[in-house]
């Protein structure tokens, strides 16, 4: 017994020494943490689908064949900044992860941003809307993919004003995200010669919007801008149909809407809506091929949302940077620097770049929801109305308040 344990001890030490030696030469182990809302409001647009997207990115990268060892763990931040930071901290300290991806919910995203910076990890955010991540609170460890409030406001606002929608009324969720959307959209609308005739702020998670819709109706504005998200947006759209808002000649513009939201509302009610996204599964052959593989692995057989697509693309780009570096992936700021120095290109978002403040620049698309008669499949929802090149859609560097730019 005794000799056996000594033997195993010696063996263990020997193993430890050899692995340590290998690590010194070329450390090719990477651990990814997919932190998302797995059970709440954002579980459909991120959640398990984001973890799947990251897994597919690992498989598609082919790095395993090149001697890399890549692990992934996922966690549920339950939309609480406390839990989000606690998980992130533990992942860095105990599980030794290198990169955190996804993280919807602006409050949690900003809290995690601080932890990643403190621990010098990599942060590829795809799920959060706040443009602060690459603006006032930017960090050398953060890359923000997919979308932000500035981009949403500018793309939708500009397109609709140019199409003749020059008077606006806002239904705004009464919290920082809604206020940012309204502020940015108002700026675009007035800059393009339109005017804002009124607005109303509603509390988060309001079940009934009829009072607000009546006010919007009475304002006679051509466009009713919905500066809210999730269940609030879907309820507004549903009840707007009930009150005959669209039939009365007013147009709804949802400033933030996801594929899964359209599914939830149904085409019958949602038809004719205008909104902006940066990814849609049915754009071209590459996106269709990816989405088909993705949907087969999803429990609900849903194609990816733009957030999940952003996770995939972000992780792929991260791997490209790692390959270019050749190993030792544990210095987050260095990896992010490498990521910024390489142009981005992938099947889902096409060509783009990462700006010095961490903002990924890619095309943004203005969509309109199809009529039920035009839809040919269970997820065939969008008609492409316009494309805005990335450099016009996102915050210009000259307007960014990011400290990284002042070098």
């Amino acid at each position, binding site marked *: 017994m005794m000799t056996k344990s000594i033997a195993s001890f010696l063996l263990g030490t020997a193993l430890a020494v050899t692995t340590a030696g290998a690590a010194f030469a070329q450390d090719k182990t990477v651990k990814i943490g997919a932190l998302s809302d797995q059970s709440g409001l954002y579980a459909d647009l991120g959640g398990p689908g984001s973890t799947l997207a990251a897994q597919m990115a690992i498989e598609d990268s082919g790095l395993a064949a090149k001697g890399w060892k890549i692990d992934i763990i996922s966690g549920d931040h339950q939309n609480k900044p406390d839990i989000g930071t606690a998980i992130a901290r533990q992942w860095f300290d105990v599980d030794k992860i290198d990169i955190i991806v996804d993280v919807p919910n602006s409050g949690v995203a900003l809290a995690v941003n601080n932890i990643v910076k403190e621990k010098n990890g990599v942060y590829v955010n795809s799920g959060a809307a706040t443009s602060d991540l690459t603006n006032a609170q930017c960090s050398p460890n953060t890359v923000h993919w997919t979308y932000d409030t500035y981009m949403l406001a500018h793309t939708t606002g500009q397109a609709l004003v140019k199409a003749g929608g020059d008077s606006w009324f806002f239904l705004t969720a009464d919290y920082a995200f809604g206020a940012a959307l309204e502020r940015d959209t108002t700026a675009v609308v007035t800059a393009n010669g339109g005017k804002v005739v009124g607005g109303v702020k509603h*509390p988060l998670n309001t079940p009934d919007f009829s009072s607000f819709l009546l006010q919007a109706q009475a304002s006679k504005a051509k466009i009713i801008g919905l500066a809210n998200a999730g*269940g609030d947006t879907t309820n507004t759209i549903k009840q707007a149909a009930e009150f005959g808002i669209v039939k009365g000649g007013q147009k709804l513009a949802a400033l933030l809407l996801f594929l899964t939201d359209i599914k939830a509302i149904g085409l019958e009610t949602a038809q004719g809506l205008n909104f902006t996204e940066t990814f849609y599964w049915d754009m071209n052959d590459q996106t269709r091929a990816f989405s088909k593989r993705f949907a087969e692995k999803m429990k609900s057989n849903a194609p990816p949302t733009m957030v999940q697509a952003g996770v995939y693309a972000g992780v792929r780009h991260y791997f490209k940077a790692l390959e270019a570096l050749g190993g030792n992936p544990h210095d987050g700021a260095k990896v992010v620097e490498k990521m910024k120095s390489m142009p981005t290109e992938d099947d889902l978002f096409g060509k783009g770049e990462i700006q010095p403040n961490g903002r990924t620049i890619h095309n943004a698309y203005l969509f309109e929801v199809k009529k039920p008669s035009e839809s040919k499949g269970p997820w065939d929802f969008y008609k492409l109305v316009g494309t805005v090149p990335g450099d016009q859609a996102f915050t210009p560097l000259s307007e960014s308040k990011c400290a990284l730019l002042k070098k």
Partner: protein
Amino acid sequence: MQALYAQLLVGLINGSFYALLSLGLAVIFGMLNIINFAHGALYMMGAFVAYFLLNNDYLSIGYWPALIVAPIVVGIFGMILERTMLQWLTGLDHLYGLLLTFGIALIVQGVFQNYFGSSGLPYAIPDQLKGGMNLGFMFLPVYRGWVVIFSLVVCIATWFLIEKTRLGAYLRAATENPTLVRAFGVNVPRMITLTYGLGVGLAALAGVLSAPINQVRPLMGADLIIVVFAVVVIGGMGSIMGSIITGFALGVIEGLTKYFYPEASNTVVFVLMVLVLLVKPTGLTGRAA
């Protein structure tokens, strides 16, 4: 001024949901002495059952039968809960009932979320109730008008059942003195189970009514429960009439708030609660706790 009329009417419509939900809660509290935290989850179940009945390949039952079937299905589910779990809490502090039903709510919402995701399912307004009419001061969707009338009828019927019929008298007596009522040959435990089923059925009914208006999603009742609670407390715990009137009144007050200070429309109920409890320590019509 016209806008104000419109807000008052819209408030009344919302009030009918509050009234239906708080009515169920008040019935359960009054008869079982349980604060039913699962009420929001059961309301959600009602909406989901309606959705299944409509979208199932074999059944494809429309809105109208769902108004009856969904409350019965959810009511039976509630009675099973009562038989298997809640009945063991008889005579214990409110807190345990609250915790147990809170746990049940978490389980139900979690399971639904696993199977249906968080963003919800579409449910269209039944054809007969589509469209709307112009009242001069506002456009009133027909469906909303139907909701107000129907829930008023249900509320009054429930009040009548409990306060004015022999069955209701037995029920009220059983909560005061179960042993005595048993001595009259009444099966008290079964009566209590049925009461819970009734209260839960009312929640499910509210769920079916709201399915065409609100998204059918697993968390649709999670935020509502705390407001409905407040309604029951303001009306006086266990008072049927109190909660019906408070429900409608809250809808109207909320409607006015949405017009004058919309940011506070979710908070106004709590302002109301503080004020009422400061003046009348046991609610508008309530008995001592």
